[in-house]
């Protein structure tokens, strides 16, 4: 609608009248009516200056073929009609020219304002829509532009196209009962039509559409727009109004501007999400490979992240105590999960025979069986000696006694060695002396060559004081932590994951600096690194699927960890949190066998702790 009353300034019109009217006659009355407004009136005598009043001559002013105003002139005498006509035409012509010029200027200005509007909208939308790298957040931000702030529509929704087919699924919506209504819309014939259209449009009266069967009672008008980026349809924006004529061309234009930005942001977010997913699955592949490498660590790399995150969550929730400042955002959660999954990745280069070395004489095969065979040779030597003695006329009784004594001694030695081999018992110097004396017995091989009963290497391994690993093997095992660092530091982690290596690499460090590989102290380790360390120990102690060992009971694991706290091995504050927030129990009830879960008297370990 043309608002002509704004087109001319009353001061300017007044001046125009003042300059021109004296040329006509004194006592002239004049007025300019524009739009619904009397802009200027010169009427000292107070005549009726309305159109059609006696003696009043009216000159119409038009814009785009429509009358938008009237110039009104009234003269005291009737004899100057022709002159009034001429001057009136001139004045009207000049006003008409001004109006037209202003009309032109205003339409240019409107264009400018329109681009200002679009520019401002884009500027804001680009920031809002590109703020998140999550597809769901992008479409939510797009929809918010039509909800809340601008209230363009009563209802709105974004449908997302499936990656592998043409199905559109409702992603987000707003409006009363919008979820149900848009689900109904999705089943309509109209939706089937618009969801494959290349361009957006408005249906301002749904009841007039042949494809509309009143599918959604509340929808009277619909605006839709495909979200297209790189020529690919990613989804569909749908706005609905309760009212017929609910949308204007300006609404569609605005929606188009926003949707073009949103579609690009959406595409970027989808690409980013795909990259993330690929990276995560890659990490999982590595973790699975390590877990599959040895029955001793099956499931370890899968469960350690879970415990780590449970501890981190407990620290995040704490609103007092040492972890009051510890917070966890999504990036950090992601970093910790990846670090915990990869903490043992260095084990891919550790030889299996070391990882799996269940007994001291394990070496691809358990060499105790070779030793057993040699003992069998000695047993038979004893039998042969007995028969030889009999043949040489020895008394049967004494030959039998010697033979039985020899067998008893051999069996005794062998069962001693068997026990040593398991690594469950500490090897004292007496034990060592006995191993060495057993080793000095000799046997003959098939070629008649004479050997000691135990090789040097066998003695060396059987003499391991604690556990089954000799010092060289221990170094090989510990080297997995070095490999973890080496491997992870080759990954070009993005900024949000820049701490992954540190989190993963510290899991065998100790608070007192006696850990490996770097011998870092507690304050040199990040809190997440200390969390991974505790998770690693707890998982190893409670793992249900270790060959050669019964699954440990919960109370036993906690007791050992408590001793580790006292030894300044693990972080005491984290251990306390682990207990007081019952992280161990939450994990146990989810993953441990019922017979592993026994009573844990947490108060015993927490007693004496400052509150």
């Amino acid at each position, binding site marked *: 609608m043309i608002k002509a009353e704004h087109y001319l300034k009353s001061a300017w019109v007044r001046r125009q009248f003042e300059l021109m009217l004296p040329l006509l006659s004194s006592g002239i009355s004049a007025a300019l009516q524009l739009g619904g407004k009397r802009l200027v009136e010169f009427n000292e005598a107070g005549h009726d200056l309305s159109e059609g009043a006696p003696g009043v001559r009216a000159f119409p002013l038009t814009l785009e073929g429509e009358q938008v105003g009237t110039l009104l002139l009234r003269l005291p005498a009737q004899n100057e009609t022709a002159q009034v006509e001429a001057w009136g035409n001139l004045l009207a012509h000049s006003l008409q020219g001004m109006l037209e010029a202003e009309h032109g200027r205003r339409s240019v*200005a*409107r264009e*400018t*304002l329109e681009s200002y*509007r679009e520019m*401002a909208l884009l500027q804001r939308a680009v920031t809002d829509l590109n703020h998140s790298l999550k597809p769901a957040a992008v479409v939510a931000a797009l929809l918010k532009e039509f909800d809340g702030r*601008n209230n363009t529509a009563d209802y709105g929704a974004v449908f997302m196209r499936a990656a592998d087919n043409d199905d559109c699924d409702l992603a987000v919506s707003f409006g009363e009962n919008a979820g149900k209504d848009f689900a109904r819309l999705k089943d309509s014939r109209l939706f089937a039509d618009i969801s494959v259209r290349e361009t957006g449009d408005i249906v301002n009266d749904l009841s007039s559409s042949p494809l509309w069967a009143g599918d959604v009672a509340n929808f009277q008008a619909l605006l839709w727009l495909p979200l297209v980026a790189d020529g690919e349809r990613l989804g569909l924006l749908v706005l609905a109004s309760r009212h017929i004529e609910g949308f204007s061309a300006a609404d569609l234009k605005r929606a188009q501007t926003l949707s073009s930005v949103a579609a690009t942001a959406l595409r970027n977010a989808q690409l980013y999400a795909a990259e993330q997913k690929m990276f995560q699955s890659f990490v999982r592949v590595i973790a699975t490979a390590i877990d599959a490498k040895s029955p001793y660590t099956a499931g370890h790399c899968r469960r350690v992240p879970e415990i780590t995150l449970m501890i981190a969550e407990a620290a995040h929730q704490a609103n007092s105590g040492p972890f009051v400042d510890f917070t966890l955002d999504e990036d950090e959660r992601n970093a910790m999960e990846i670090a915990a999954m990869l903490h043992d990745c260095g084990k891919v280069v550790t030889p299996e025979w070391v990882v799996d070395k269940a007994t001291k004489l394990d070496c691809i095969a358990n060499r105790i069986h070779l030793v057993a065979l040699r003992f069998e040779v000695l047993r038979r030597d004893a039998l042969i000696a007995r028969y030889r003695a009999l043949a040489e006329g020895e008394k049967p009784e004494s030959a039998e006694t010697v033979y039985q004594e020899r067998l008893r001694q051999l069996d005794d030695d062998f069962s001693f060695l068997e026990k040593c081999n398991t690594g469950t018992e500490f090897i004292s110097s007496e034990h060592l002396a006995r191993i060495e004396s057993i080793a000095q017995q000799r046997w003959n091989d098939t070629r008649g060559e004479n050997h000691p009963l135990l090789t040097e290497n066998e003695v060396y391994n059987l003499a391991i004081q604690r556990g089954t690993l000799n010092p060289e093997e221990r170094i090989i095992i510990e080297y997995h932590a070095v490999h973890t660092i080496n491997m992870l530091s080759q990954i070009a982690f993005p900024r949000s994951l820049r701490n992954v290596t540190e989190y993963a690499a510290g899991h065998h460090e100790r608070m007192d600096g006696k850990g490996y590989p770097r011998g870092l102290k507690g304050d040199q380790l990040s809190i997440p690194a200390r969390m991974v360390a505790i998770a690693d120990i707890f998982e190893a102690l409670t793992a249900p699927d270790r060959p050669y060992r019964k699954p440990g009971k919960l109370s036993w694991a906690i007791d050992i960890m408590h001793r580790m706290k006292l030894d300044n091995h693990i972080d005491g504050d984290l251990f306390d949190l682990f207990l007081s927030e019952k992280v161990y129990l939450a994990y146990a009830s989810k993953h441990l066998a019922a017979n592993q879960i026994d009573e844990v008297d947490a108060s015993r370990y927490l007693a004496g702790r400052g509150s």
Partner: protein
Amino acid sequence: MMSENAKIVIVDDEIHIRSLLEQTLEDLEGEPKILTAANGVEGLALIEREHPRLVFLDVMMPLMNGYEVCAAVRKNPALADITIVMLTAKGQESDRVKGLQEGAHRFITKPFDPDEILNLAREMLGHS
């Protein structure tokens, strides 16, 4: 409801900004009277004479810049009820602190969003 004769003053040295703002504000309900000035000195005189409810004030102007006009208005207790909206060019956003110190209420970045101008004027003039 705003009183029928609420006044709005626009002070900007660029004629197209004045005219675009004027055209935008004409859409306000209640037909407020819109007055314009092309520089700071003229603008201050207009504000003092007309005592508007709302002033749109450009920052960069010859003779007297927007901050100076703002400070002068704020010095006059009789004009304390005037709402001042500063118009800044893109890139001048860092000057906002200065404007706030001088007593401006709001900032609009040029090129402005006409809808934002209208919503702001409605809010400042006290109708929703």
